[in-house]
């Protein structure tokens, strides 16, 4: 495993050390060592079932929902083990936001969707909430489209708008890290392009980890890329390097389309 990246100028925001995730007996992610650099975009690629989503969902412990799923090894965030006993999962998830594969706005108004997170984590005055909502929606490039119908139900938005709303909802909690689990796989090319633009804009303010099936997307948006295969982290490096001069044979086979 030569994938430990040289992080001289990039502080590691999340670091996996011999980290494994099990579904019952099955080891879905196998003894991973990698660092997700702060304020950069990390892409995780690999064929279906390679454990990339499992790893991503381990970072904010969404895997807790799956019965029989447990982890081994260490996943360090903020000098503490994410799977340690002293972690308050609700606080952790407040620091590590997530955008899902399919847009999942709540069946509430657009305003209430964005305000949901802030309301959870503290009591805000109405004017503060208004500000957070506007700020988050602006960051997600949705403000202009919805500012006149904030009280309309969010289920009336198009797929691309809904996904941006979910992004705004995640941003409203003011997370440090954003996890994206194939955020564009349910969207059309135009909506996909807008999300990708947003990711590039958010880079530098947030640490972003994005799982994607689409290798072009990885090259477009990410600074570093990790290639997972059957639960192993095969290769991890700077994106341009990994896609042009892969070290591992399996990486080369995958990115040239020989399998996957």
């Amino acid at each position, binding site marked *: 495993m030569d994938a430990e990246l040289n992080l001289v100028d990039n502080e590691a925001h999340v670091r996996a050390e011999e980290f494994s995730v099990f579904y019952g007996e099955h080891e879905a992610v196998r003894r991973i060592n990698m660092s997700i650099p702060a304020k950069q975009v990390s892409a995780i690629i690999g064929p279906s079932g390679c454990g990339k989503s499992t790893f991503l969902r381990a970072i*904010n412990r*969404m895997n807790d*929902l799956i*019965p029989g799923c447990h982890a081994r090894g260490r996943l360090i965030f903020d000098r503490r083990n994410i799977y340690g006993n002293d972690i308050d999962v*609700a*606080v*952790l*998830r*407040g620091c590590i*936001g*997530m955008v*899902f594969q*399919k847009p*999942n*706005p*709540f*069946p*509430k108004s657009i305003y209430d969707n964005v305000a*949901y*997170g802030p309301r*959870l*984590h503290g009591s805000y005055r109405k004017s503060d909430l208004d500000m957070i909502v506007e700020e988050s929606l602006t960051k997600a490039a949705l403000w202009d489209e919805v500012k006149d119908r904030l009280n*309309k*139900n*969010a*289920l*009336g938005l198009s797929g691309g708008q809904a996904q941006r709303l*979910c992004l705004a*909802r*995640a941003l409203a*909690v003011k997370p440090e890290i954003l996890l994206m689990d194939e955020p564009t796989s349910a969207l059309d090319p135009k909506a996909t392009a807008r999300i990708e633009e947003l990711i590039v804009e958010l880079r530098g303010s947030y640490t972003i980890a994005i799982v994607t099936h689409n290798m072009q997307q990885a090259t477009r948006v990410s600074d570093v890329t990790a290639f997972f295969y059957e639960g192993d982290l095969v290769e991890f490096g700077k994106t341009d390097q990994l896609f042009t001069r892969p070290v591992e044979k399996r990486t080369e086979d995958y990115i040239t389309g020989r399998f996957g």
Partner: protein
Amino acid sequence: MRLSTRKLLDKSFTFCAVMAVVVLTAFLIFVLAPIFVRGCGAYVFRGTVEYRRMMLDQFGRGDEVALAREIALAQTARQPVYSAVTAFEAELKQMPAARRREMRPLFKVVREGLELLLGPEPGKPLPTLPRMLYGQTRWDGARRHLKHVLYEVQWDYSDDDDGVRVLAPRKPFFAGTALEPIFDLLENDLDRMLNPRLTFYGRFLTDKSVDAHFFGGIGPEVMGTIYLALTAMLIAVPLGVVAAIYFQEYAEGGAVMTFLRSCVNTLAGVPSIVFGLFGLAFFINTIKVSQGKSVLAGALTLALLVLPTVIRASEEAIAAVPRAYKEGALALGAGQWRTVLTIILPAALPGILTGVVISMGRAAGETAPIIFTAAVSVGKLSRPLKMLFRDTPALSWNLYNICTEHEAVDRIRHVQYGMALTLVVLVLALNLVAILIRARVSKRLKG
């Protein structure tokens, strides 16, 4: 299989389905139409002067002056009948003993019939029971009763062992006496004697009953039913919804859960009379929620009865909430309770409400559970909180009661049908409300 065979099969299946729907509809009409038509008879009917007299006496409604004039008019029309009766009484005394013995019982029947038809004879001491104070208050009842006065029921066994019912006119019995003309008078002049008029009795729904449903309305029954159903739901809904949340969101599999679930399902299959006996044994005799039958005891029993339905409907509604909503909330750092309260319950609300209202209809209509725990045949209204610890009449049970145990089942058919109609409409209205709420809530949810 050949194509033609398959088409034939398809067609016959379609035919069967259509027939099933047709039969179902016909059956529904067949059941509901008589209830509706005859039930409306309790609200809209041709009321006689006796009805207006009763209304003024018992409820203080109506125009006293106009009524006095009406009564005077009716009295004029009746006068020849009463004169004939008086004359015949005198004649009876002059008769030879044998003939008198023969005539007296016949006369007695006619006289009693007259009292039921027109009310007590003027000049005689008034009876104590309200039911004896008035003649026929409804024109349909008067027409029916007139037959009993005019004809005698006889059985003709001439050519059959079973016998045939025949109506024999009474008039020939009294041929040549002073009583003879009253039969023609009654037949031709009854509408002047009773003055029927189309009456709308909307307050049938809210009036108390007079003398065990001989007159008046079904107000205490309606209120009792509403109290029972509402209280039952107030108990069953919080319990059921919380249980459903636990089953769906908290409980992990395992033997205990499987056992609990099958307990709930078994509860749904227990006959309702068993619930009634359990309610008596447990709520009244063991933990003594009240001295005897009470709305509270009945509502607790009904709540137990509908609990499985509420739980199952809520569970289904909760299970139908997309997982993605829950994940979204959890990913924002919401705790489990918070997720349930702010995301899952609102999204499941339409489904839960549907289950609740269906259960409420069931609670309103159930009879057996309240026989021993809440229902009595006569009751009066009081404030809701006081009501909670008192027994009460209720539509379902009192319908059964006045159809089977009333002393004059035949005379109060209109009340029976009126009660049935009211119960059906009440349950239908509840369901309608549910549909409306559901439509509004899901519209709000869908945007």
